[in-house]
């Protein structure tokens, strides 16, 4: 049976009125929770699980996956409008998306994010349909040594990604690495840097940290600038709701590259969609004729990463469908949903229940189209938010943040953590230090350490494991080249400066 007959079977399942409705409900719900910071797809899907007991297996999975990729769409909205990354992957969207909004270009930013996501979603759906089995071998090829090298490359990319002084970026990465050490070490069971506080036993959570560093500190610094006192909105001159032809020309290649990166990295279990989105950002910045535009509202900086994270979100279904293992906590929930329905996720699913397998895949394409149709008209409404006087807007932002952080674990101490991170973030703005490298160091650091030690345990203490694996060696080599390429110009500039003096 070729792919087309299989896809036709899938569409025949996904296009029944009932399943179309579940798909619509899922995508709508997903968009909504994506927009609300802190309330993520994990909590939502967990709450809806008992409801799905009574649905058909296909209907249940179609709705739940709709929530997941819908949330990826919605997550970019708050990142662009108010600098609030609701999820790991939208941290990168803040970097250029919010400057665009401040410049009155929130409309084009939101539209390009939606279009990029749509394109990436379509491509990734086809990829899942055609090459999910070969892509599984990518996941198999990544052992601890390869993960370590990938993370090392990621950290080097982080320096590239930062604007301003590389030294400050390195400092922020190190601070992030330190933060990632907090909590119980799985290799020794020891508690590190928890200061005896039970809430830190499991480590610092990403959401309060990101919300504090980006969202809360942004609120403080806006208030300081006096925008609130004068009752002024965040931006007065909103220029256009849709991207211009020039914007589209700039974004198209970024969307293509982002989709490619996201599709491949999405298959790896772990923080793949975040790694994908900032790998895409770093690539766009490197390829740009004028890298200095990045961080000040470059549309490619929104288009690339948004496409990458959506492609990654979609292809993270591959390990679930092909191997029956979850690549993130949403996928773990999907496994729970499948087991409740009496389905065993794994390689036999495709041959035993082709209607379900292909139906879910076809629904992803339909869902992405629905999301585009839902989101484009909404842009007009979202952008109006920026017209609200800031003294009315910021209490709402603070409230949403607090509710979001609290509702993750029903833990008041995590709201405090967000507040502390907010103060820290304000300090960083004053010191002109970028918070993004810190967050990336935080996310990558924990995985890097675990995989380093795991690799060393597997090799019985022989560090050659990192270079004897061709994949790991190649990743490390790219990292080294990038490092040299970043440091050399900085040294040369300094020398030139010295000569001039």
């Amino acid at each position, binding site marked *: 049976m070729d792919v087309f007959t299989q896809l036709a079977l899938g569409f025949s399942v996904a296009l029944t009125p009932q399943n179309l409705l579940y798909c619509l409900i899922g995508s709508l719900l997903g968009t909504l929770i994506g927009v609300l910071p802190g309330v993520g797809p994990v909590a939502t*899907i967990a709450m809806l699980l008992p409801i799905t007991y009574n649905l058909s297996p296909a209907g249940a999975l179609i709705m739940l996956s709709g929530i997941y990729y819908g949330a990826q769409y919605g997550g970019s909205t708050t990142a662009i409008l108010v600098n609030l990354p609701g999820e790991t992957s939208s941290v990168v969207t803040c970097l250029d998306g919010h400057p665009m909004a401040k410049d009155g270009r929130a409309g084009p930013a939101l539209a390009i994010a939606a279009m990029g996501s749509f394109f990436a979603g379509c491509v990734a759906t086809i990829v899942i349909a055609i090459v999910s089995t070969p892509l599984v071998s990518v996941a198999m090829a990544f052992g601890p040594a390869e993960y370590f090298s990938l993370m090392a490359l990621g950290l080097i990319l982080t320096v590239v990604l930062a604007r301003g002084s590389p030294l400050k970026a390195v400092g922020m990465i190190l601070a992030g690495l330190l933060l990632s050490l907090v909590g119980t070490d799985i290799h020794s069971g020891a508690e590190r840097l928890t200061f005896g506080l039970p809430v830190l036993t499991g480590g610092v959570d990403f959401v309060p940290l990101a919300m504090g560093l980006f969202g809360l500190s942004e609120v403080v610094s806006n208030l300081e600038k006096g925008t609130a006192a004068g009752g002024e909105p965040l931006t007065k001159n909103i220029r256009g709701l849709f991207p211009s032809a020039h914007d589209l020309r700039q974004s198209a290649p970024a969307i293509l590259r982002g989709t490619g990166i996201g599709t491949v990295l999405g298959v790896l279990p772990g923080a793949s969609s975040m790694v994908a989105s900032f790998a895409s950002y770093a690539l766009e910045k490197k390829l740009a004729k004028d890298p200095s535009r990045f961080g000040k509202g470059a549309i490619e900086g929104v288009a690339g990463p948004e496409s990458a994270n959506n492609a990654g979100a979609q292809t993270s279904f591959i390990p679930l469908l092909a191997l029956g293992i*979850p690549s993130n906590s949403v996928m773990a929930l999907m496994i729970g949903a499948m087991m409740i329905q009496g389905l065993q996720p794994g390689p036999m699913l495709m041959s035993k229940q082709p209607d379900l397998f292909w139906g879910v895949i076809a629904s992803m394409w339909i869902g992405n189209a629905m999301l585009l149709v839902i989101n484009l008209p909404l842009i007009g409404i979202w952008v109006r938010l920026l017209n609200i006087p800031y003294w009315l807007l910021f209490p709402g932002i603070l409230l949403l943040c607090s509710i979001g952080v609290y509702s993750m674990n029903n833990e008041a101490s*995590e709201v405090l953590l967000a507040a502390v991170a907010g103060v820290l973030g304000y300090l960083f703005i004053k010191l002109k230090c970028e918070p993004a490298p810190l967050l990336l160091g935080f996310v990558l650091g924990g995985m890097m350490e675990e995989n380093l030690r795991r690799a060393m345990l597997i090799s019985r203490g022989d560090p050659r494991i990192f270079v004897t694996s061709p994949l790991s060696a190649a990743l490390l080599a790219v990292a080294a080249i990038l490092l040299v390429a970043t440091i050399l110009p900085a040294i040369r500039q300094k020398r030139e400066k010295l000569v001039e003096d």
Partner: protein
Amino acid sequence: MLKHLAALAAAASLSALASLPALAWPDRQITITVVTGAGGSPDTVGRLLAAKLSERLGKPVVVENNTAGAGIAGTLAVARSQPDGHNIVILTGGTPSQQAMRPKQPYDLTKDFALVTTLCAYPMVVAVPPNSPIKDFKDLLAKAKANPGKLSYSMNAIGSLHHLLGEWINIEAGVDMQGIPYRGSSQAFLDVTSGRVDLMVDTGTFAFGQVKQGQLRALAQSAPGRYDLAPDVPAVAETLPGINMMSWLGFAMAKDTPRPVVDRLNKEIREILAMEDVKAKLAEMGNIPMPSTPEEMHQRISSELAQWKKIIAAKGIKAE
């Protein structure tokens, strides 16, 4: 005068009601705290029971996930909650091992809770990829003996049930297999199936599913005898008598919760666990129902604590 009498009678009947706490419970929403993430088996089972309980008790029963502080924060919150039976925490087979590893943690499972009942249980599984040269459990021990320190097994964090089973086997068989810690089963599974790690020690929930799909071959499971849901997998105890370990889930409430409330909840759970649809859903997840009395649950936790402390001391496992 008549009015007076009526008022007196009303007051008397009210006080009679108040003296029967089993009837007054529950008077509002019941919260079940799950200290592991959404989607794990405690969460899925918790939500299944919550739906059934709220049907039977006529009050909403909700599940809240609190993963803060490796689960310690949420467990502690229930231990310190009002002892009125409206806050339940789901303990797991991993909770006693956590306490054995952390003598300084802020609560003691045997003293600070009103234990209600265990809910369900599953064994741990020792498994290899289908093409592994290791033929069966005896062969594994022989190969481990011939190559001391060479074989590796995937597990969860230090002090997890995965780790304790691996080390228990090491002790009883006199072998030295190296545990490699992973966060969750996914990456462990990929490393085992691609041959980087020799075998997998994982939960029945995960492993039996993969065995059914032909992606893993089970060498042994840790139930005291053959396990109902996988009768063809030999027990570890058949080769190494004395080793048995079940991971379980159980309900606990704050310490001074009135005994009638505990008994009522125990009875409801017992009846729910006997329902065919509940049994079927648990079986899908590799679980069998395991209701108990509060005393049996206390006994289980105490003996596990003692056993884990013994293994931890023998292997010098320390959280340092």
